[in-house]
């Protein structure tokens, strides 16, 4: 195992399926969609969302108000600790890199703009404290009692994957022996309104990569990965879920919201990640796509696969699991990293739901209908976001 290899030794998840990686994996294997009418959660908003029901309470410092995004992050962090199976050595000094785009926006009310001072006096002051994105990293760190370096990443929908990439860089820099990396975002009226105004929401459950796709659905959740160098994990006999073999980040430098039409930035990102992992396109057995279901994203993303995997001997298997639990924004890349690791561990390639008439592409093997069972030594998770940012992560079996 190379010195640069990063081991994933713990995974915590809170998703619309509940807490735990197992609950998410079994739901994906069963093809269970958890998108529901938005009106049940946010009256006045149309379309479908995937919400986390009955959020369990967390005991926390009275002087540290948790936003819903913080709350999700803390629950995922606690689940990550459980996944370590009691092997928590070195965790006290662990660093934290958490991604978010919403952070404490859910705590702010529109009335703040008319009289900020009055809004703060009426209880807004405590709520505003969770507004900075850094608060999510602090909430996770404080709740778990870890005292290493902390930072937040906010790069739109590529945030969650980037947090894992940056935490891996920090491990290679020797900043900490163990890092907690992931993403968390809550549903809130601000984002529902924003994506609605952009006419980016599908009123029905989304259909990523289908010719009839009409937009995305928002979701919420959080995932936290415990990562460390392979040597560190080996030395402390930590069970390893999977290896992070390569990562890369790029930007389209093209448009504030639209992806590059040929997917050039995303293709370069995937190629760069494969270079770092010393893998060839034929070695990648599955790509967990960004696959939002918007007309522009999915077309550009398909072009990106055609470019990045053009030297492959057979089409690349691709699916979007946003068709199960929506687009969780800053948490998406972290949750989908967890899904990709599930696929490797279960030897199952999850299909895209509701994909009946896929985009024509000879380079892509669109996964649909039922999970495909096969050994999966290497898989990739890709993310992209507003502002043109892209991230790709390559995971491998622990034994590879």
């Amino acid at each position, binding site marked *: 195992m190379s010195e640069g290899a990063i081991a994933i030794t713990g995974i915590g998840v809170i998703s619309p399926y509940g807490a735990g990686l197992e609950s998410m994996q079994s739901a994906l294997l069963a093809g269970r969609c958890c998108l529901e009418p938005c009106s049940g959660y946010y009256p006045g908003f149309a379309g479908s969302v995937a919400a986390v029901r009955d959020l369990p309470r967390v005991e926390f410092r009275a002087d540290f108000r948790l936003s819903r995004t913080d709350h999700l992050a803390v629950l995922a962090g606690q689940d990550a600790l459980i996944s370590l199976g009691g092997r928590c050595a070195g965790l006290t000094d662990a660093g934290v890199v958490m991604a978010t785009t919403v952070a404490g926006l859910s705590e702010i009310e529109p009335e703040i703009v008319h009289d900020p001072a009055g809004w703060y006096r009426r209880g807004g002051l405590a709520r505003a404290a969770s507004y900075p994105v850094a608060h999510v990293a602090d909430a996770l760190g404080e709740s778990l009692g870890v005292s290493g370096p902390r930072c937040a990443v906010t*790069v739109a929908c590529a945030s969650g994957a980037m947090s894992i990439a940056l935490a891996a860089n920090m491990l290679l820099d020797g900043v900490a022996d163990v890092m907690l990396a992931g993403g968390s975002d809550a549903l809130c009226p601000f984002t529902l309104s924003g994506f609605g105004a952009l006419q980016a929401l599908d009123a029905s459950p989304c259909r990523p990569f289908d010719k009839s796709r009409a937009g995305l659905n928002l979701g919420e959740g959080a995932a936290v990965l415990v990562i460390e160098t392979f040597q560190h994990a080996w030395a402390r006999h930590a069970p390893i879920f999977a290896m992070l073999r390569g990562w890369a*980040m790029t930007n389209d430098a093209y448009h504030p919201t639209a992806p590059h039409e040929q997917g050039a930035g995303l293709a370069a990102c995937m190629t760069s990640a494969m270079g770092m992992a010393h893998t060839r396109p034929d070695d990648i057995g599955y790509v967990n796509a960004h696959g939002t279901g918007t007309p522009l994203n999915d077309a550009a993303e398909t072009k990106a696969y055609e470019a990045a995997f053009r030297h492959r001997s057979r089409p690349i298997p691709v699916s979007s699991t946003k068709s199960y639990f929506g687009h969780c924004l800053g948490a998406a890349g972290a949750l989908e990293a967890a899904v990709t690791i599930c696929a490797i561990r279960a030897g199952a390639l999850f299909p895209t739901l509701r994909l009946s008439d896929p985009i024509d592409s000879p380079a892509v093997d669109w996964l649909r209908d039922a999970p495909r069972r096969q050994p999966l030594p290497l898989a990739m998770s890709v993310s992209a976001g507003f502002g043109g940012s892209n991230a790709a992560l390559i995971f491998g079996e622990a034994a590879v």
Partner: protein
Amino acid sequence: MTANAPAIIGIGSVTPYGVLAGPIVPGPLQPRPIAAWPVAGVRWAYLVEPFRATDAVPGLKTRRLDRLSVWSLVAASLAVRDAGLDLGQVDRSRAAVVFGTCLGCIELTEAFFRGAANHGWQGTDPILFPETLGNAPASHVARCLDLRGPNITVGSKGWAAECALLHAASLLRHGQADLAVVLAGDTLTRASYEWYEAAGWLADDSGFIPSEGVTAVVLMAGRTPHSYATVSAGQFASSPEPVSRGLGDAGGLLRLVLSLSAAKGPGSRPMELP
């Protein structure tokens, strides 16, 4: 000096000191009374003087952008100019942008909330929404300068600027980029000012005077023809309390540039940053 330590080769800034390419001449700075929103009595802050972005960077398009994005575009362009970089000779796919901020694009976030307050959540402005995202400034810099490498926006309580600088240096050290434009900044708005005030952080005897601005540096790997300093080492940290709240999270990079400027000008021997 650490071998091949990333070097700071260009500086640009939009701060209360002015709109500048290159070092900032440190000197006394007077706070100005706030006139941009209604205040009871007189309230003071170190503010960026209004300016036309195209005066600083001809041809720059900044319509309907948050001030933080506008200032980032200007500061980044000036830093590149100060570095003497011909971007046409640079592999732009290996040029990163790393931005540090505490509050992000709060001016247009407030504008978006205003739309919701006045017209309901169904009546918000679609053009505003993408500009409220924290990574909007960094993505505009990437698009304007055609920098296609990693594009990262980070926040960290009180030291987002230092965090951005360290992540950029890490990208260069690991060969994930050859060059990085590193920026840090925050703007002052009515909601943020009154937040500080409500929290008691502006108390006369023990408080601070709020400020705003964006500072940018160009960081380059390997041997460079000239540099202001090298980033030889650094340490990420967790901070239970803000350490530079008076300057927002622009503070770290601005203080760094001020210290560099006080110590030396370009062309002289690089100084190592601890």
